[in-house]
């Protein structure tokens, strides 16, 4: 909302005041605005204001060929692009009956888990910054950079990999890649202890985040919360387990949960998920040399590719929650409708508003960051 469009609302004389936070604010994740009504330090009402990152992806995708959309799709969620690409590819594969070769599925799992690690490393830095600790951000971004180097090696792009096409992936792994992956996993595991000492075991962090923005199971289910935020209330629901896709049913991993449902629980769930991702990646690195074959099923000429008419709903577990694509085709060479359901559409709007009410102003940033509310997903 531009300043010139702001209409001042007159309040009766009281001790309530309105405060706009955002859209460019270090306490806000991404470009997003919150209009808070405060009474002293306590938030009385909150209203989210989105739209600063609206790029019109759903409309753009209707005007481009199925293959051309792979370039648009990762840009919808900035910190965690691999999930967007793979969900789109899964949706088109369901529509077109394309069978993805086994090697491609394992490579996709590797891509997803590496992307989850980068998202969580970024997340820890962000959350720490809301509490005034900036070292974690530096560490997180530096370690994330090493993972991005791996992305650059095998996908060709550091953040927006544009590596998945419906039917598989675009290139096979380069030689020696799995060795580098294993070395990086060892390095990340060795760093976890440092992160624990700095952040997760830090008494100040624990004290500040315990009890902040609490949610119980009932509220979580009612408000449509998914992903780590739901698992922080004690419900072990994970799309990878409940609605398995790719080869997750062949991989061993646990679903970490916490009981308290507050900010600390949300942080700890993600900390444990990072370890689980490393565990999954180790299994993938073990298996990949034995899975041979093409990395893509044969596809027609992208300029002459019609997908059969129908609709499909593809769901994946992104680092933030349940990500889903509803893809409709009318039998042509362009999608008829692509509807993207990002997890932050619940978290950044209703949940954030509801949790903000009754909390203190200094905790607002923490609530937003621990919910991992990602505005690009809300705006598309």
């Amino acid at each position, binding site marked *: 909302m531009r300043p010139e469009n702001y209409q001042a609302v007159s309040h009766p004389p009281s001790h309530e005041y309105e405060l706009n936070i955002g859209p460019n604010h270090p306490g806000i994740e991404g470009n997003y605005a919150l209009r808070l009504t405060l009474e002293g330090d306590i938030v009385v009402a909150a209203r989210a204001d989105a739209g600063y990152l609206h790029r019109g992806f759903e409309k753009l995708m209707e005007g481009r060929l199925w293959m*051309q959309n*792979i370039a648009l799709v990762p840009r919808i969620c900035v910190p965690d692009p691999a999930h967007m690409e793979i969900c789109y590819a899964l949706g088109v594969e369901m529509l077109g009956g394309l069978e993805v070769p086994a090697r491609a599925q394992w490579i996709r799992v590797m891509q997803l888990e590496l992307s989850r690690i980068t998202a969580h490393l970024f997340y820890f830095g962000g959350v720490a910054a809301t509490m005034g600790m900036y070292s974690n951000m530096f560490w997180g971004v530096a370690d994330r950079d090493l993972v991005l180097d791996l992305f650059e090696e095998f996908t060709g792009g550091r953040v927006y990999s*544009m590596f998945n096409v419906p039917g598989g992936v*675009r*290139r096979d792994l380069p030689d020696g890649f799995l060795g580098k992956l294993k070395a990086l996993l060892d390095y990340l595991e060795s760093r976890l202890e440092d992160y624990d000492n700095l952040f997760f075991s830090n008494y100040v962090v624990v004290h500040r985040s315990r009890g902040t923005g609490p949610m119980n199971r009932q509220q979580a289910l009612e408000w449509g919360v998914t992903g780590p935020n739901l698992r922080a209330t004690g419900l072990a629901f994970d799309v990878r387990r409940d609605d398995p896709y790719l080869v997750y049913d062949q991989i061993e991993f646990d679903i970490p949960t916490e009981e308290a449902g507050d900010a600390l629980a949300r942080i*700890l769930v993600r900390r444990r998920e990072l370890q689980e991702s490393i565990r999954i990646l180790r299994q993938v690195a073990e298996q990949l040399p034995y899975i041979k074959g093409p990395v893509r099923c044969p596809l*027609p*000429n992208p*300029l002459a590719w019609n997908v059969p008419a129908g609709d499909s709903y593809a769901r994946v577990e992104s680092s933030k929650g349940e990500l889903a694509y509803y893809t409709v085709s009318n039998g042509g060479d362009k999608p008829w409708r692509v509807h993207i359901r990002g997890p932050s559409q619940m978290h950044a709007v209703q949940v954030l508003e509801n949790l903000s009410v009754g909390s203190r102003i200094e905790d607002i940033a923490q609530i937003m960051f621990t919910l991992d509310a990602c505005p690009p997903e809300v705006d598309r």
Partner: protein
Amino acid sequence: MSEINYKSRGSILNPLRTLSFLARKPVTLPLEPRAAAPNYRGFHLNDWEKCIGCSTCQKICDNEAITMIHIPELPEDPVQGVRAQRPAIDYGRCCWCGLCVDVCPTASLSLSREYIHTCEQHELDSYFILPDPHGMHKRFYDHGWRKTADEDLIDLQRQSMPEREPVERLQSFDEFIDGYDTQAAILEASRCVQCGMCHDSCPAHMHAPEYIRAIWEQDLEEAVRQIYRTNPFAHVCGRVCTRRCESACSIGVRGEPVAIRWLKRYAMDHVSHERIRAIAGGQRSGNSSGRRIAIVGAGPAGLTAAYDLAREGHAVTVFEALPEAGGMMRYGIPSYRLPAERIADDIDVIRSMGVEIRCNIRIGQDITLAQLHENHDAVLLGIGLQFGRSTRIPGSDHPGVHSAVDLLRRIRLGEFVAVPPAAVVIGGGNTAMDMARSLARLQIAQHGLACVTITALEDREHLLADQEELRETGEEGITILPARGPQRCDIDDSACIDGLFTVAVRSIYDEFGRFAPCYDDSDVQLHRAGMVVEAIGQQADLALLGEELTERLAWDRGRLQTDNRGQTSEPWLWAAGDLVNGPDVIHAVADGHRAATGIGAWLAEFAEATA
């Protein structure tokens, strides 16, 4: 899973733990530029030698970041499929997805391992670049993302065409190519990238990209409509065309070209004849112009001109000396390549435009050219090249030595041609192959066994027949002996042809490129045969012109001289087709169009002048 010990209280000694960091390696990156990963998608590199300017990259780019730039100095060759255009990229729009690299038919585009470009606000023009092999900043950072053999977005292999086995083929003169079924046609049509090289190289500039797209969309009537914009002989060309389009096809640079000829055949075969007539009949001018035009020769040139002129509203009469219309298509190409029914279908469509075709009338004999000139406003000669050339070797005047053109005509007329158990054909072009394969079939029918030998001056790589013909001829058991020249015919005591002596060829052209074959007289072979056929070229039969007209007309090295539209030095007399431009169906069709346009324009001027 290790437990996080977050319940412990703080201790004053905790910060001392950080001293351990002094012992660790700092996380630091060097300041020097580092090489990007081998797969990195950096800025574009384009190999101008390989790039043909097909603009497929422009089509696949989802941000419309690529513009084609015409650069005059570059080579441009429509026949080979090379354009003097290269892609330029707007980095304000490009998102570095690499789809252009993956789709490029010639694999000339790649992305480099360069990371960074910066500029000030006033230097925004630097965002629009023309990629060359050296890199955006004139410093070559190695190739990054490039096309590999497995990761091509284009299918380099053609759908195979089902055909009958050679043994079965030889049993008859039936057509042995089955044609694509619907699934194969859709798959083959989907390989096309719509670059338009085929359109540029076709002599008649057929709208191939449009009809291929229509076939892919299964709108076959639209395909027929697009075909008829330029070619009323699509049944014929869909079987026997020389396929300049396929030589120019971009996919053919690294793979097999799109089977444009077979797709044309598929579209024509799968639409009913009545619908084809209706579609071709559109866009006729209803008015009659009152002009009368005579066309001599019902071959592709003459009939195409007739089709065009009749649609303009002129009264056209075509005179044909042989019993059926079709010219060389009907009487020069064997029926296993081109059945007479398909020619008749095409000609029926032309007749339905109001063209009158009168067969069994020989101009110069039954009617003179002068009479035609009296009764018509213009006369178009589309008489083709009806005589075969002779080698003039000793013995070539013997009755057992035939010319291929004559024999093929007699076979097509349905005459019985007695063929001895062994025969030799001299010549290495398509006509020689047609002749040899026809003789082989006749031998199977008459003797149960085929024995035909072909001798040609050219060596194996330079034989003039096209590759498919050579392959099929070889499959049918015919021996091809390249680099052998005919020396003399061997005649036995009973004055019958007994064989042909050939001598090895050392070279065909002299240092000036003139035809001057040089033989190695020590290497002579005798090929036993009861019949020798000469298939070394064709000549025109211009007796119909008569002495007086022949004197008046302008000639150019033995050929009738025409301007670029087909008009001779006599304004009412026009010529088109093989007579003017050498043997080939599609060239004849293109010629027919030019002549028709020329005649129409000339008549309009003439009308204005006399009005």
